[in-house]
C-alpha cells in the first residue's frame, strides 16, 4: 500500500473524529456531518485506486446502493427516523458479514488466528446486527407487533444458539478451511439476531438499535483487522464506542439496567400491583373540555409543554407549535420540557420539534426544567405518560421506581392530553391523573391540539 493511500486513510479518520466533535453543538452539527461525509469520500477514493478487478460489478453496486440510499433518506418522514436508522444499520452489518464470508471462502479460511478470529467475529456480529436490525425495523414500522414475543425457555434457546455459534467458531479455528461450517455459523448468527430482538418491546427498540449500531461498528473494525486497513479499525472503534455509550445513557434515562432492557420482555401485558391498587382505590379523574383548558392556558403566565411518544405517533408536532405560537402572541411564556427518552429515540423529540420550526432555545432538558416547574402555571402533557409518572419517585414498589421524570406535578396546574386512561408502555398506572390539580383532555393528540388552537383563538 502506498504512503499516499495510508495518509488518505489517516485524513479520513481525522475527518470522522472532527465530524463527531462538531456534533456537540446544534450550531456546528450540520458542518460536522459534512466533514464526516468528506472523510468518507476521501477513504473511498483512496480505496478505488487499489481496485484492480470487477469494476463493472462495483459500479453497479454503487449505483444501486446510491439510488436506494438517496430515495430512502429523502422520502422518510421524520417520525419514522428510528426505523430508517435501524434499516441503514442493518445493511451495514449485512455488508460486514458478506465481506467476511467472501474473504473466508476466497482465502482467509486457511490462515492463522490473527486473520481467522476477526473474520469469524465480523461474520457473526455482522449477521446478528443485520437480522436484529430488520426485526427492529419491522417492529417500529408496525409491520409486526411491537409487543414482546416470548415463550417459555426463550433465553435458554437463545443461549443454546449462541453456544452453537461459539462452538462452530472454535472448531473453525482449530481445523482447516470448512466453508459449509462457516455458512452454517453465519446462518445461526442471523437466527440469533432475530431471536434476540423478538422478546424486546417496540418502545425499547432504540436501545436495541443503538446496541446493534455498536455491533456493526465492531464488525467493521474486525473487517479492518482482516484486511489490514486502519481507517476501518478507527471508524469501527468510534462507532462501537458511541453505540455503547448511547446504549448506557438510554438505559440510565429509563432507570433500568441494560440487562433489564434486553432480557426482561419489559412492557408485556404485566399489570403491576401498584396499578391494580390505584384503580381499586378509584381516585377521581377530572376531565375537561377544550374550552376549559384554553381559558386556563390563555390566562397563564408560563406554560411548559411536555411532549411524548403519543405526540410522535399522532404526528402532532406542527399543531403543538401552532398552539405555542398563539400563546406566545398573548404574552404567555412557553417552554418545552424534553425527557431524555421522549419520542421513539433519545433526541427524536428534538428532531420532530425542529421540523415544526420550534427553535431549540425553547427546548429544555429534564434537569433544567424541573426546578422551574414549581413556578409554572400550567404543565401541558401531550402524549407522555411514564416520563411524568410521580410513582417513579414516590412508590418504591412501582416497576418504574427510580426512573428520572419530568416533575409536572410541581406545576400549579396540569393538563394531560391523552387518548384514554390506558397505562403507558411500562404498564403502570399514573397517579398524576388522579391528582386534584390535573385536568384530562381525552382524544387523539392532534385533534385535541387543533381544538385547543381554535378555542384559544376565541378566548
Amino acid at each position, binding site marked *: 500500500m502506498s504512503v499516499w493511500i495510508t495518509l488518505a486513510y489517516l485524513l479520513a479518520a481525522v475527518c470522522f473524529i472532527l465530524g463527531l466533535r462538531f456534533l456537540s453543538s446544534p450550531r456546528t452539527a450540520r458542518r460536522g456531518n459534512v466533514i464526516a461525509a468528506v472523510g468518507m469520500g476521501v477513504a473511498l477514493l483512496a480505496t478505488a485506486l487499489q481496485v484492480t478487478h470487477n469494476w463493472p460489478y462495483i459500479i453497479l453496486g454503487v449505483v444501486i*446502493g446510491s439510488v436506494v*440510499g438517496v430515495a430512502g433518506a429523502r422520502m422518510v418522514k421524520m417520525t419514522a427516523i428510528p426505523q430508517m436508522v435501524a434499516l441503514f444499520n442493518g445493511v451495514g452489518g449485512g455488508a460486514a458479514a*458478506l*465481506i467476511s464470508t*467472501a474473504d473466508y471462502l476466497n482465502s482467509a479460511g486457511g490462515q492463522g488466528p490473527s486473520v481467522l478470529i476477526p473474520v469469524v467475529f465480523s461474520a457473526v456480529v455482522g449477521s446478528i446486527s443485520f437480522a436484529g436490525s430488520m426485526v427492529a425495523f419491522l417492529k417500529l414500522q408496525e409491520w409486526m407487533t411491537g409487543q414482546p414475543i416470548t415463550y417459555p425457555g426463550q433465553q435458554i434457546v437463545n443461549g443454546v444458539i449462541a453456544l452453537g455459534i461459539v462452538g462452530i467458531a472454535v472448531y473453525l479455528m482449530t481445523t482447516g478451511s470448512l466453508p459449509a461450517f462457516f455458512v452454517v455459523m453465519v446462518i445461526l448468527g442471523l437466527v440469533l439476531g432475530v431471536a434476540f430482538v423478538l422478546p424486546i418491546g417496540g418502545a425499547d427498540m432504540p436501545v436495541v438499535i443503538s446496541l446493534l449500531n455498536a455491533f*456493526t461498528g465492531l464488525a467493521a473494525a474486525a473487517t479492518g483487522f482482516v484486511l489490514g486497513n486502519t481507517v476501518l479499525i478507527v471508524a469501527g472503534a468510534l462507532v462501537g464506542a458511541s453505540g455503547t455509550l448511547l446504549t448506557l445513557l438510554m438505559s440510565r434515562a429509563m432507570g433500568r439496567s441494560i440487562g433489564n432492557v434486553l432480557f426482561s420482555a419489559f412492557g408485556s401485558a404485566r399489570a403491576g400491583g401498584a396499578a391494580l391498587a390505584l384503580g381499586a382505590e378509584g381516585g377521581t379523574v377530572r376531565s375537561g373540555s377544550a374550552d376549559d383548558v384554553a381559558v386556563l392556558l390563555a390566562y397563564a403566565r408560563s406554560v411548559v409543554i411536555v411532549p411524548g411518544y403519543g405526540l410522535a405517533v399522532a404526528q402532532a408536532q406542527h399543531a403543538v407549535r401552532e398552539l405555542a405560537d398563539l400563546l406566545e402572541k398573548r404574552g404567555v411564556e412557553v417552554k418545552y420540557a424534553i425527557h431524555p427518552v421522549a419520542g421513539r429515540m433519545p433526541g427524536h423529540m428534538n428532531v420532530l420539534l425542529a421540523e415544526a420550526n420550534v427553535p431549540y432555545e425553547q427546548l429544555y432538558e429534564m434537569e433544567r426544567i424541573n426546578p422551574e416547574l414549581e413556578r409554572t402555571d400550567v404543565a401541558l402533557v401531550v402524549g407522555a405518560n411514564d416520563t411524568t409518572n410521580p410513582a417513579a419517585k414516590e412508590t418504591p414498589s412501582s416497576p418504574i421506581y427510580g426512573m428520572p421524570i419530568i416533575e409536572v406535578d410541581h406545576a400549579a396546574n396540569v393538563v394531560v392530553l391523552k387518548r384514554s386512561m390506558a397505562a403507558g408502555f411500562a404498564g403502570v398506572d399514573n397517579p398524576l391523573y388522579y391528582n386534584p390539580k390535573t385536568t384530562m383532555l381525552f382524544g387523539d393528540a392532534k385533534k385535541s391540539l387543533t381544538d385547543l388552537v381554535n378555542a384559544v383563538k376565541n378566548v
Partner: protein
Amino acid sequence: MSAQLLTNVTILVLAAFVGFEVISKVPTTLHTPLMSGTNAIHGIVIVGGLLTVGALAGGWVGVVLGTVAVIFGTINVVGGFLVTDRMLEMFKGRRPPPAQSADPSKKA
C-alpha cells in the same frame, strides 16, 4: 502475535477512547442525529467490500457476495449521511420573524 496485529489492537483501543471522549460531549438534543451520523460512519465497511471484490480474479460466489456487500455499504453511507443532514438542517436557532410564515408550506 505479529507486530502488525499489535499495532492494529493499539489503534482500536485508542480510537475507542477517543470515541468515548468525543461522544460524551454530545448533548441529548442531538442524540438522534448522532446515532444516525455514526451509523453512516460505519458504512466505511464498504471500503472492505471494494477491496475484496476489487482483488478477486475469479470465483462468482465471492463476486456476488462482494457486490451485494457494496450495495449494502453504499445504502448505509449515502442514506446515512443524507438523512442526518436532513435532520440537522432543521436545527435552526430562533427563527427570523419574516421566515416564519413561509416555512410550514415548504416543509409540508
